[in-house]
């Protein structure tokens, strides 16, 4: 169990300065995520889900306590080292897709591989594979503005998955999608979790997502109030 852990969070506190005082968004979090988990952080709006994901993603650092991600202590990483960690090992999926607007679908998915200096041929193959996973082979030349919300999010998933990262962080990936699209992308991610053993951590309050989770962590006012493993066969 221990050596399988990919994320270890201990006594984590996150405070944001608000005017002259501060606001405690996360308050004493202790969590461990193991390799291959399909886990979700759920809870009401403002409970600290995004904040937690940002810290795990090394985009933000804890005020107190530690977050160890792939054997790296997030609070001790320089911005450059953090960038390397994200580039090599992490994938992000955002509520707002965050596709690069002037790039085609192909170029968007290719982007993380460019950062890894992957050779062109290998890159092309990987992008085509990723397009296959999300079923968008026919949109290869489209630009983000020409895609529906569901298609955009599938491109974002392909972009997060193309380099086969150890960990994918997905913040409200279905918030802008209808039921059918939500199920489609969740099935896609479930399949990738199964085939590539990629660890997924979601932040969501969407019941459609919750149904797919194999571990559900409930956050309220910056505290973990429940953490359950779900065995849905």
């Amino acid at each position, binding site marked *: 169990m221990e050596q399988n852990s990919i994320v270890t969070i201990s006594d984590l506190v996150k405070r944001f300065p608000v005017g002259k005082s501060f606001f405690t968004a996360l308050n004493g979090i202790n969590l461990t995520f193991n390799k291959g988990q399909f886990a979700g952080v759920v809870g009401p709006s403002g409970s600290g889900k995004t904040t937690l994901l*940002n810290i795990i*993603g090394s*985009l*933000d650092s804890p005020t107190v306590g530690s977050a160890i991600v792939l054997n790296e202590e997030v609070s001790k990483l320089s*911005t*450059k080292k953090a*960038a*390397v*960690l*994200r*580039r*090599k090992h*992490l994938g*992000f999926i*955002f509520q*707002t897709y*965050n596709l*690069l*607007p*002037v*790039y085609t679908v192909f*170029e968007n998915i290719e*982007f*993380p591989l*460019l*950062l890894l*200096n992957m050779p062109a041929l290998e890159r092309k193959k990987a992008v085509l594979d990723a397009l296959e996973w999300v079923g968008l082979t026919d949109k290869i030349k489209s630009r983000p503005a020409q895609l529906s919300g569901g298609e955009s999010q599938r491109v974002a998933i392909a*972009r997060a998955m193309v380099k086969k990262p150890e960990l994918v962080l997905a913040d409200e990936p279905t918030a802008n999608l209808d039921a059918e699209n939500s199920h489609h992308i969740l099935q896609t991610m479930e399949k990738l979790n199964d085939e590539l053993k990629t660890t997924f951590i979601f932040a969501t309050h969407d019941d459609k997502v919750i149904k797919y989770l194999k571990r559900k962590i409930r956050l309220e006012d910056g505290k973990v109030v429940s953490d359950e493993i779900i065995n849905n066969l």
Partner: protein
Amino acid sequence: MLAIKLAYRNLIGAGLRTWLNVFVLSLSYVLIIYFNGLMDGFNIQAKTDTIAWEIGDGVYWHKNYNAYDPFTLEEGHGIIPESLNYAVNKGTLSPILISQATIYPDGRLQSVLLKGIGTEQKVLKIPSQSLSVETEEIPALIGKRMAANTKLKKDDVVTLRWRDAQGTFDAAEIKIVNIFDSNVPTIDMGQIWIPLKEMQKMKQMPDEATIIVKSKEFNKKINDDNWVFKGHTFLLEDITKLIKTKKIGSSFFYIIIMALAMLAIFDTQVLSIFRRQKEIGTYIALGMTRSQVVGLFTVEGSFHAILAAIVGAVYGIPLLMLQAINGYPIPEGADNMGIAVGKAIYPVYGLGLVISTIIIVFLITTIVSYLPARKISKMNPTDAIKGKIQ
């Protein structure tokens, strides 16, 4: 490499705004190259003409003569060294005797510079052969400016008065046998050219000269303390100085255009960094370092300079070529500033000028693009991802 590839994609993706900036910037390329080319063309032409008409490959001044001090004419002359006679006869050296004199066109008194030149000389373009005609009067040659000034026409006869070596006044009639057209005002305005032999007799200065103009073919050095050599650097200094001043004057133009272009690019950069926060956040989330993102935006900005060079070339090359062929017309009378100016200036564009212009514009554009891009490194990525206004 990656930054260049991405910057290119982003810039082309940005469309119209990019091309607008690129166009304004390309104007500054074309203007800088055009104005400098015009000045260089002017410079080359003025120097070529001055060399052809006035100074040849250099001039030996008599040791007491100074072209900038007319009072030295009195003493500034001497016997042409005998050893040079062969070169004078061959036409590779052209001795010139200079003296002050007076003419009386229509009864008015007018001071002139009287110059005696060999009728067989081949050093200067002055058509001195036309002085070897049989006339009762002394044959004389003047330039078109002098002709306009004195209202003298071909075949006119006018009284000339001078003082000989002893200081005695003497007078004779001269006849204008030819009027020449030269771009060089300094051999034209206020000057009358007569045969050297004639003038030596009139002045009672046999075998004497004030200056000796040499041609390229004459490649020996005159080692004679009475004669001091003046080379091109010295004799063309006035033109060099004038061009320098003109260049500084015209740079005002393209500095303004350049400033406009830089302002447009700076503005575009500031705006795009503000508008593209979400994109910047995404770059960082996907694993770009902040300095990579700053680099990307800087390269994007400086790419304007490269595109502008291409766009500038597309319309600039034919335009500038046309000017180089047809020349830039100079209004009549513009040459009164005492420097050789033709009827048109033909711009000359040196490779060095083009390359240095491109490098300078590129560097300035890069700096202007970098300044706003530095702001990226202070952005909070979690805010940027959401596209929050800061």
